[in-house]
């Protein structure tokens, strides 16, 4: 069988996988290692102007007057703009989606008009020859404000005593109730009912590179080139086009190196839209880079939830039902264009996800507040759903006197039960909960850890072991956004071109922010075509050159973009063999491609170097038959459609030690067993898991955006907002089960968000396991020493 002609997961065959499954280093990492990357702030442009924003100091206030006279006179200042001026060039937006029934949000402008609704909302823009001149001048803007009532607390918001947006009648952005029926019955019949309330702190992405955009309007062509640190260049192209009134084909979005994104850089930000509009107004390149302090105030936040959950079980330990009520606050606007209803919606979809109960009720209220906006951030909704599920599952196991691992084994959906429809309505193609559980218990040596825990407790050392099983959304179909009317592509494309020298250039619509996307595309392309890895060059992040596609979000890059590359690679290989057959006057079926050579399929004897084939095809086609035209550039696209999402599963384990005198948690070790289908590059896959786990640990132990009662962010800097640093982090052991998706030839599912989805729950359960001898329990993340000491009744 020739290289890569069958699905990689074809049963009963030995498919040559080439580089797929190998831990090759990333070819594009070399420039980053020498400080020769190209982040937005590294670009140098003639006549570049810099924007700094004057932001609201109040959480809610009417703008009575803005006086720019002093600011405008400062050295280097080119212009100062208010909301109405920018609005003449940039249409406002309303972030709703048709499939989130009833979701509402007010129109939002690039720069606030009349009223600021959170501390940090941009209300004016100063443009100057340098950033420091712009910042200096912004301080000289004189503003008069009328303070308005502030709604900070989400319960208060829900009560509707003070309505933030009068036109919307109440503070409810979105509400949903899902009910299978029979839930109350199940609880009435249950032998055991457990109930708890979990609180999730509002936190944020803290990408090391702040949000960055450099917009370069060409007045002669009425065209706009935008260099932007974004995960979705084509989505942004569409948005710049529609909101700035420039034909789509005249907008080009270029994404070079991006310094971390994690979902932060997939949204439309008012200050970035204002920067693009200002480039149009001023007919010159304009740059905005969010500094750290304004990143805390204006990058999306995420995950402020209060969830009440109940679980019903039999005395034999069979889970009968989940009943869940989630309240989440999203700030004053739903974020464009994905909306801020998705995170809560995911919590409703995913709660109880790994288990085989049939009765489920989930209620959701998404409310407005006068804090910074929240939206989709790495693992959207999963950390909440997994933590509340796994937290209540542990509580049930404790009440039943069952080991948490055994309780899970009893209730996890069987590995042979697929395809499976979960009570929330989501469908699973094929998961492997039991295999991943067995593997986890094996790699973490669960039994001996329990024995060690017991013996250490006798010595007053309090260790805890926490488990967290999970399901995750990956490879989303158009059902995620497209069906709701969002112009966000669920399909992606890859163009492969054989160069005359035998190199293969790959252009793909999925972008790279360090995950290793370009590396895996090189692996897939080289394997599919039959060339060595160093013969590939990858181009991503440019709407002017790549096929159209969605970009990087929802763990879709490998599964969707990778499949497009595979399909294009196979098509190119076939076309190359057509050329080879014409040159060699042989039957195409007798030929194959291997190691940069056309070879005899049976004997593997080299027949012709690709370089020679390229020379003839491009420079001496006169020597080929009259009716033959070589086609050495091919494009293929891929859209997952069979399932709404290609769910993955996994399970994590955490080992911690809690000091009952100080409340400090020491992370001793963490394990993650993940089934993300075909693993293309194990080293990069493990890196995605580890990075994700550490981000999840941040949520569990350190990170929270703290607000005062009047809506002031109290810890909006890196000294006060704690992120995980190397000193406190544990080593993380990763292992894989591979259940390929049969929807694609590649069989890859997503992996980028798994770590973040499960780690908070695993750490929470470990902390509570350590606190169990004291009868103490924590359920409000992050688990700070203060909260732990409070649970221990020591403060």
């Amino acid at each position, binding site marked *: 069988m020739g290289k890569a002609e069958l699905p990689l997961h074809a049963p009963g065959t030995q498919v040559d996988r080439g580089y797929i499954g190998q831990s090759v280093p990333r070819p594009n990492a070399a420039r980053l290692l020498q400080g020769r990357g190209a982040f937005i702030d590294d670009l140098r442009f003639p006549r570049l102007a810099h924007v700094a924003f004057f932001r609201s100091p109040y959480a809610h206030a009417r703008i009575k007057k803005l006086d720019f006279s002093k600011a405008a006179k400062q050295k280097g200042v080119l212009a100062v703009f208010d909301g109405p001026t920018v609005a003449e060039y940039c249409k406002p937006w309303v972030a709703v989606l048709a499939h989130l029934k009833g979701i509402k949000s007010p129109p939002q402008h690039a720069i606030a008009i009349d009223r600021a609704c959170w501390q940090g909302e941009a209300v004016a823009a100063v443009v100057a020859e340098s950033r420091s001149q712009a910042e200096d001048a912004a301080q000289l803007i004189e503003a008069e404000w009328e303070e308005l009532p502030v709604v900070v607390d989400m319960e208060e918001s829900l009560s509707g005593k003070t309505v933030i947006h009068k036109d919307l009648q109440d503070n409810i952005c979105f509400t949903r109730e899902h009910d299978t029926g029979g839930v109350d019955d199940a609880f009435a019949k249950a032998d055991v009912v457990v109930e708890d309330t979990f609180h999730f702190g509002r936190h944020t992405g803290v990408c090391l*590179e702040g949000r960055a955009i450099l917009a370069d309007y060409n007045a002669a062509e009425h065209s706009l080139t935008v260099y932007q640190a974004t995960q979705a260049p084509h989505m942004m192209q569409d948005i710049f086009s529609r909101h700035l009134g420039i034909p789509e084909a005249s907008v080009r979005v270029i994404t070079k190196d991006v310094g971390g994104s994690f979902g932060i850089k997939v949204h439309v930000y008012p200050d970035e839209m204002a920067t693009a509009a200002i480039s149009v107004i001023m007919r010159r390149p304009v740059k905005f880079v969010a500094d750290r302090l304004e990143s805390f105030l204006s990058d999306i936040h995420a995950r402020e939830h209060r969830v009440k959950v109940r679980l019903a079980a039999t005395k034999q330990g069979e889970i009968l039902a989940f009943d869940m009520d989630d309240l989440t606050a999203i700030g004053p606007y739903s974020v464009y264009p994905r909306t801020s209803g998705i995170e809560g919606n995911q919590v409703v979809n995913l709660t109880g996800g790994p288990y085989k109960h049939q009765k489920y009720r989930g209620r959701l209220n998404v409310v407005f507040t006068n804090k910074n906006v929240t939206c989709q951030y790495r693992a959207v909704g999963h950390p909440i759903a997994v933590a509340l599920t796994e937290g209540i599952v542990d509580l049930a196991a404790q009440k039943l006197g069952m080991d948490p691992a055994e309780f899970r084994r009893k209730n996890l959906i069987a590995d042979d039960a697929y395809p499976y429809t979960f009570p929330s309505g989501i469908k699973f193609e094929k998961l492997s909960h039991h295999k991943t559980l067995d593997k986890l218990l094996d790699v973490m040596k669960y039994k001996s850890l329990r024995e060690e825990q017991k013996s250490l407790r006798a010595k007053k050392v309090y260790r805890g072991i926490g488990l967290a099983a999970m399901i995750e959304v990956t490879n989303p179909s158009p059902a995620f956004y497209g069906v709701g009317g969002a112009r966000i592509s669920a399909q992606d494309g890859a163009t492969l071109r054989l160069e005359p020298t035998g190199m293969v250039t790959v252009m793909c619509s999925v972008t790279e922010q360090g995950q290793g996307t370009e590396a895996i595309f090189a692996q897939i392309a080289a394997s599919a075509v039959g060339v060595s890895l160093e013969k590939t060059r990858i181009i991503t992040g440019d709407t002017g050159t790549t096929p159209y596609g969605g970009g990087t979000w929802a763990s879709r890059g490998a599964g969707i973009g990778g499949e497009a590359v595979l399909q294009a690679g196979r098509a190119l290989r076939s076309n190359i063999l057509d050329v080879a057959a014409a040159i060699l006057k042989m039957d195409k079926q007798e030929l194959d491609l291997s190691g940069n050579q056309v070879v005899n399929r049976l004997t593997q004897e080299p027949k012709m170097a690709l370089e020679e084939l390229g020379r003839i095809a491009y420079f001496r086609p006169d020597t080929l038959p009259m009716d033959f035209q070589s086609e050495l550039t091919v494009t293929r696209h891929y859209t997952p459609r069979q399932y709404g999402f290609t769910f993955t599963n996994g399970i994590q384990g955490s080992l911690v030690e809690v000091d009952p005198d100080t409340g400090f948690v020491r992370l001793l070790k963490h394990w993650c067993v993940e089934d993300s289908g075909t693993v293309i590059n194990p080293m990069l896959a493990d890196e995605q898991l580890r990075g994700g786990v*550490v981000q999840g640990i941040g949520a569990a132990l350190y990170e929270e955006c703290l607000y005062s009662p009047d809506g002031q962010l109290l810890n909006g800097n890196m000294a006060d907002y704690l992120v995980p640093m190397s000193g406190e982090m544990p080593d993380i052991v990763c292992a894989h089960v591979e259940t390929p998706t049969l929807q694609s030839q590649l069989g890859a599912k997503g992996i980028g968000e798994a770590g973040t989805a499960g780690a908070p729950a695993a750490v929470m359960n470990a902390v509570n396991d350590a606190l169990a001898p004291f009868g103490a329990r924590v359920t409000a993340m992050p688990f700070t020493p203060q909260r732990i000491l409070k649970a221990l009744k020591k403060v």
Partner: protein
Amino acid sequence: MEHALDITLTVNGVEVGRRVAPRTHLVDFLRDELGLTGSHIGCEHGVCGACTVRVDGDIVRGCLMLAVQADGCKVETVEGLSDSKELARLQKSFHEKNALQCGFCTPGMLMAAQDLVRQKRKCTREEIREHISGNYCRCTGYQAIVDAIDEVVNG
């Protein structure tokens, strides 16, 4: 006109003279005046370590030192230590172990790691973690970075 001072310093082996505003940070000077964009700006308040450079042999935060304070000093950045091959072993190890994802923290991380390498002593993983605990990486979870440094320091 803002008061400005003349400074002369050696950057990556080359003597440079400029007139700078006293408030200009060293890292802004390196990036904006000299075009050395390898040193990154992550927080501008001394926490993240992305702007770590070497001044007269010691690593410093480029955002906590003023350019005028570097007058007469020998400044080295990731570009210089890449060209001189001083960072070559670390860069190879980082590459092989994928001790970077987005690469934004990487120049600062390498400068901090090289500071440990120059101490020419064996280190435990905990000591390596401690040494880079002032350098924030959001992507990797740090383990591959520790592995990469471990190989160079103890290999």
